[in-house]
């Protein structure tokens, strides 16, 4: 943690001294991603689904930083593709073993939440509306629909637990 912070700080100082594009932000994002997915060991709920969704969301954040700095525009396509691929994997983990996974459904729904934000981003023009965004919206809607139809009770119980304030 200290090493990565020091490394990021040095990059920022060098970047500011030499000028040019803010490449040090990519270093910072990369260091954070490395720390989050490799160094840091989650002490609670260290499940495969959690690790996968964490890896994907941090990758998306890093990709967004790269795209914002270099402005090549690949994020508009890559981001939704990554998200729907991960949704398919998480959906398979969850729905194919529902009895065991019913109390472990939050990574999937956090992912659906992330997908919802991405689709919203496309609607308001931050991202381009393309085939990948449509697929992402479709898969998210499908998951939400089957959850509401078949898994409403466990989903509500799980949400009650996850968002309790007492």
């Amino acid at each position, binding site marked *: 943690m*200290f090493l990565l912070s020091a490394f990021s700080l040095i990059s920022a100082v060098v970047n500011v001294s030499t000028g040019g594009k803010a490449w040090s932000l990519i270093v910072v994002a990369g260091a954070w991603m490395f720390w989050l997915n490799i160094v840091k*060991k*989650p*002490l*609670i*709920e*260290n*499940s495969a689904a959690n690790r996968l969704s964490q890896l994907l969301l941090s990758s998306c954040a890093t990709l967004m930083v790269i795209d914002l700095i270099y402005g090549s525009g690949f994020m508009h396509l890559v981001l939704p593709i990554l998200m729907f691929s991960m949704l398919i994997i998480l959906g398979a983990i969850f729905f194919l073993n529902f*009895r*065991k996974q*019913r*109390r*472990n459904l939050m990574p999937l729904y956090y992912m659906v939440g992330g997908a919802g934000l991405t689709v919203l981003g496309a609607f308001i023009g931050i991202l381009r509306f393309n085939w990948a965004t449509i697929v992402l919206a479709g898969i998210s809607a499908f998951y939400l629909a089957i959850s509401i139809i078949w898994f409403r009770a466990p989903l509500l*119980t799980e949400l009650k*637990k*996850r*968002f*309790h*304030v*007492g």
Partner: protein
Amino acid sequence: MHIRRKPTPYRLFYNSAADNEQAALDRFFSETAENIMLLPKRQRTAILEDFEKAFVYYGKNGISAEDAIKRLSYASPGDFYSQTPTDWYPLDYAAKIYPMSMNSRWMAVFRLSVYFNADIVPELLQIALIGTIKRFPFFATSIKKGFFWHYIDSARHRFISEPESKRPCAPLNISTSSSQLFRVVYYKERLSVEYFHILTDGTGGMIFLKTLAAEYLRLLGVNIPAGGGLLNVNDEPTESESENAFEKVASADSSAGFAAKNAVQLRGRISRVVPARIIHFEMDSSRLVETAKERNCTVTALILSFMLEASKAASEESKGSIQIQVPVNMRKYYRSDTIRNFTMYGYISVPRSEVGTADTLLPEVTRQLAQITSEENMRRMVTATKNLVKYLKFIPLFIKQPIAAIIYSKLADDVFTSTISNLGVVVIPDEMKPYVKKLDFVLGTGVKMRATCSMVTAGSVTTLSIAKQTYDRSFETQMRRLLIEHGLEPVLSGSEEYGIKDNISPSRRAVEYLAGGAKNHFVSAIGFFVNKRRRKRIDRG
């Protein structure tokens, strides 16, 4: 080619049984298999193997299959595993801080041990655990992360007992949904349960340990009736056992503050692996009570005054106060059956310069102890905790957690020199007494606090345990001197029993010194740029 397998020990036992016994064994296993049908296959197999091993043990010890079935049927999981669990529990007010403040190296863990007269039989201990856990559904849980708070979610899996391989109170692995929030370990004649503090306090932990020990003895053929803090494993758990008993405490008009000034810390560099040392002082309990009575004080006050004197001798800071944390069992004031946390704390504080001999300190310690452990003061503490939870309840956990970790280290550790948790007299049923030598209680070390003390009395033996984070021996040496001077004749045991080397090698000491030194240099460098005041404190340290 047909490969002829060697029959398993259980198969040999089964073959040696009479026909009617074989039929009874078949029935036993088919009923047990049905009861655990919802578990994953690997765990089902493991539980059935646990029972097979127990039968083999009985067979080797000349116990008939019929008698063995009778004993093991009592400990069968029943319908505990036959339904998907739905219970979940928000953490109680005392527990909320623990998951937020833990890290990979430190976790709030305490340990209760019972010493039998003979070595533990692992096969029967495992069955005793299977039988006991169904009576404690609140213990059959795992911890989960909510958006605002952590919570405890019920879990059904095989709970395991294992030979002791780690230092006492080592952090538990609670990262998966099949992790246990407690650890059952055994070594020779010692059976220990180590609890993550979110689950229970000393009182609840002792109920579980006694019930487990009684169930274990029952499997050995000794019947111990329930009662006196020992539960019948086949009774239905009640809701009041898993209640958040803090809810019962009416709010006080004013709340107490948590914070105090930083306390004097004991000398010595914190070891990379903790606890660095564990010391048990065994004393005659009646002599200890007499010594306290002669001085017109309680046993806790007497030990506190010893700790104050020992802390002064074991510290180098010239300014500041020696502050010792004292957990208070709230069941003293509010009747509750809960086996969850129901403990608050107070602390006594004496300026280091005013700390004299233990005997001269006693009146002041007694006065402060009566004041801090009063119902009114405890109610104010509970009110303060409730208010804190109320203010923080809508702040997401990912924001609260890092801040809480820092605050815990500051509030719970920097402000205390040490802590003493006295579980008091634990009643051991008469039927159990011939098989139990003694109990002990080890409180895990704090984040920075160099020494934590814990005490428990069972029968005629009081055991005072000290868990240390440093190799410096001044504190425990002084404690020993004071106990001897007061005629308590302590019998010393400790680290070597747990495989902890008291004398670390020069190379290891050098590595620890260099590692600690490098860290200190880094902190100093940051402090130089960030905070002048902090730098001064580090230099002083």
